[in-house]
């Protein structure tokens, strides 16, 4: 954070903007000359001295016009932010190591375009935006996700040097937005399905499940499950087939905390579990998740995957 931002925070506090739309009124917009502006001022001073020294009437006029241009530019810099509306938008969950994108919708109800808006939440990751006359647009503010759990959007600095680069007008945005960060997955083979406690009587009855049909093999399927005979009947060009078994009610895939190596750090174990959850989700298997203190019953589908990943993300460290 730059000293000016810190000073600003000190003076104006760090109140959150909540979830309501943010309207940039004049109390929220700050403006100061940029480094280019200082260079420009210095150049004008030298030019003025030159004009006086050589007694150049038009030189005076030029310097005065350029000085006025600077002031007009200042007004336009301010105007570029003035009365811009920002609405907090969606945030898609990400994994640790990825970049969260916080969507902000910009609304411009003025008859001029807003250009060269720069949003920065994290130094070094600016994102540019522009809004047409009476238009709206969405900007995704990137924040790298470094730890699992909730990632709150840090204060976003919206600044602009439009139109001449001589002044920087800026505003601090603090919309209440957060992003769920899942553990970064580590992919290992799924653990073996284990029989259900009440289905133990049927164990040993030969076939585990009832044959239900074939489906195309996906890269994640083990070669052991390939129905070779059926595949050959299909001919060369077709992908391999996998036997599918219905039911599975008598055995279930449980992704269990206890099944991971206790010697590993907790975060790694969560990553392993996350890898399994994603793997199982992609294979459209039904699975359950068991964490110390958290039990998610078996189910399949995207919702199940999301719920399990959320549980992993929010699992107390």
């Amino acid at each position, binding site marked *: 954070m730059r000293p000016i931002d810190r000073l600003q925070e000190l003076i104006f506090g760090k109140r959150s903007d909540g979830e309501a739309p943010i309207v940039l009124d004049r109390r929220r917009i700050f403006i100061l000359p*940029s480094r280019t502006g200082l260079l420009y001022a210095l150049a004008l001073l030298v030019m003025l001295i030159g004009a006086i*020294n050589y007694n150049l009437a038009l030189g*005076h006029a030029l*310097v005065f016009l350029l000085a006025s241009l600077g002031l007009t530019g200042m007004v336009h810099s301010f105007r570029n932010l003035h009365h811009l509306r920002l609405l907090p938008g969606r945030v898609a969950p990400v994994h640790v190591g990825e970049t969260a994108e916080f969507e902000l919708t910009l609304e411009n109800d003025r008859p001029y375009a807003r250009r060269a808006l720069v949003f920065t939440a994290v130094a070094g990751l600016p994102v540019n935006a522009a809004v047409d006359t009476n238009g709206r647009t969405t900007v995704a503010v990137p924040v790298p996700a470094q730890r699992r759990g909730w990632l709150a959007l840090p204060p976003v600095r919206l600044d602009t040097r439009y139109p001449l680069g001589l002044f920087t007008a800026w505003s601090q945005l603090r919309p209440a937005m957060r992003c769920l960060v899942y553990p970064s997955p580590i992919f290992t083979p799924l653990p073996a399905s284990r029989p259900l406690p009440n289905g133990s009587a049927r164990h040993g009855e030969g076939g585990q499940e009832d044959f239900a049909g074939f489906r195309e093999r996906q890269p994640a399927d083990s070669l052991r499950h390939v129905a070779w005979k059926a595949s050959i009947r299909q001919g060369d060009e077709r992908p391999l087939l996998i036997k599918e078994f219905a039911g599975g009610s008598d055995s279930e895939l449980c992704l269990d905390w206890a099944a991971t190596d206790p010697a590993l750090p907790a975060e790694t174990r969560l990553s392993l579990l996350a890898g399994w959850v994603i793997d199982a989700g992609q294979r459209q298997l039904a699975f359950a998740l068991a964490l110390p203190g958290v039990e998610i019953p078996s189910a399949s589908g995207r919702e199940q995957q999301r719920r399990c990943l959320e549980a992993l993300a929010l699992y107390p460290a």
Partner: protein
Amino acid sequence: MNQKRDASLSREQPPWLFAAAIAATAPHALAQPLWLTAFAAVLFAWAGWLWWEDRRLPGRWVLMVLTVAGNLAILAEYRTLFGREPGVALLVMFMALKLLEVRHRRDAVVVVMLAYFLLLTHYLHSQEIAVGLWLIVALWLVTAALTRLHAGPIERRENLRLAGTLLLQSLPMMLVLYLLFPRISGPLWGLPEDAHTGRTGLSERMNPGSIAELVTSGEVAFRVRFDGPPPARRLLYWRGPVLEDFDGTTWQRSSRRLTEEVVQADGPAITYESTLEAHGQRWLLALDAPLALPEGASLDGRLAAIVARPIDSRQRFRLRAATAFRFNLQEAPATLTDNLRLPTAGNPRARALAREWQRQARAPEELVDLALRHFNREAFHYTLRPPLLGRDAIDDFLFRSRRGFCEHYASSFVFLMRAAGLPARVVSGYQGGEFNPLDGYLVVRQSEAHAWAEVWFAGRGWTRVDPTAAVAPERIEQGIVSALPAGEPLPAFLLNRADWLRDLRHRWEAVNNTWNQYILGYDGERQRQFLSQLGFINVDWRLLATLLGIAGSGVLATILLLNLWHRPRLDAARRLWRRAQRRIGLNCAPQETPLAFAERVRRTDPALAPAVDAVVRHYLLARYARTDPEHLAALRAAVNRLPRRRIV
């Protein structure tokens, strides 16, 4: 300012920089050495080609070598790196080199700043109207380059309009600054030697041909506005340096200090204001004889007015003069002796002629008459192109060539008078002037440069004698053009006698003069005048600062208001939509779409449904298919068909 802010330039940005660089440097192309123009042009073309081909810019060491080579070349050309001309040359070179290393916005900003700086340097050469106009265009381009760097992706036309709008909105503030910013006149420190080059004007030495050279220039020497009616042309003798020392070929100003002049006016006083163009010397070129001088000016003992510092910029003076006058009825004997002095040898025939006249004349006045009659009777010609004269220049002129310009006549006349024992000296200056009826200014050009003589009679003092008038009286009565035979090398515009052309020239000069007087000539003095017209008596910097603050804030507030004040305006369709809701006493909820609203009405109020359906349909068409204005009319009709209901 982190690295990301100095983002690399996009593909569309460099052409704007090229345009700005060319606009800022092109007018220098003719004034600077040819090699520099070629050097800059090659670098520009190179930068342009690299951009066109999308190639990498040259490495640092290439630029280093070019910079060193350029600096050395400029050093070799000007023998220095400081001063006006080498300074401009350096700026042009830096501009060309900088274009070859424009990678980031930071570099591009430097190019723009250099361009602004270069715009200023054009005024060192000329501040004419045309230059002013060209620089407006250039300023627009340079500013557009700056906006192109900072406004994000933007179309070409849009960008030009943005830069134009910014400049136009800056004009009122510029005007306030121009009028009210405290003006400091004069250089802040000693100017480099080449600050004022190429100034034409009288010099303090006169040899045959020096004035004729001046006369071929059509440049304006000064402009005069008389408070009353202008005096007759033949009385307009503007005195420059008085030349007393003669070495056989050259007349020179004497450095001897003389006592103060005694001038008696014999006629009415004439007051006038003279605007002198810069001539780099101290001569005020006052009308003979000056009675009152502006502050800081003085007479040099020979009735020539001088100012304390060389006139290096256009300046205005108020003066008073009398064309009928008596000057130094008493003269110091030493001065009279000086004005009788001749080289010990040379020009024997002229001396003999003078002795002959001396014998004939009974009074000194008759000597003058004899000489003038001689010039008049013998076959003397007035020409700008006299033949070269031999060693005894006066003899050669008087007895052989007999063709000469005013300096020949003045010089030989004074020689003859001195040889005949009458104190005499050469006066150089200007004679006449062209009256412009459009703005009432008398324009005196270099072509009006003249030399005449002054002789001293006991009891009458120094008296003007113009031997040129004896040979070519038209020169004094009507001006140089009438006096010279056809084919003389005068500026073409002076020779043209067509009325409409002269009228056109007068118009143009009047416009130029207004520009000079009120725009270029707006100095501390004019500023005081302007403010006193507004009712401010004691104008000091405090008053100026206050006025500047008030007027500046006013203008800034206006610009702020114009830009930021915004009346929330609904378009016609939305206005009608609101009216429709008021009319039926139902509101479309904020989260409800118009179609959902229609659906709700259909459920709750079936009687109203058809009319509301029509309104909704036309409203959606009017808002989202805006190209067709008929939708709006249909919407209006549909709204008017709605039954009026009050909210119960």
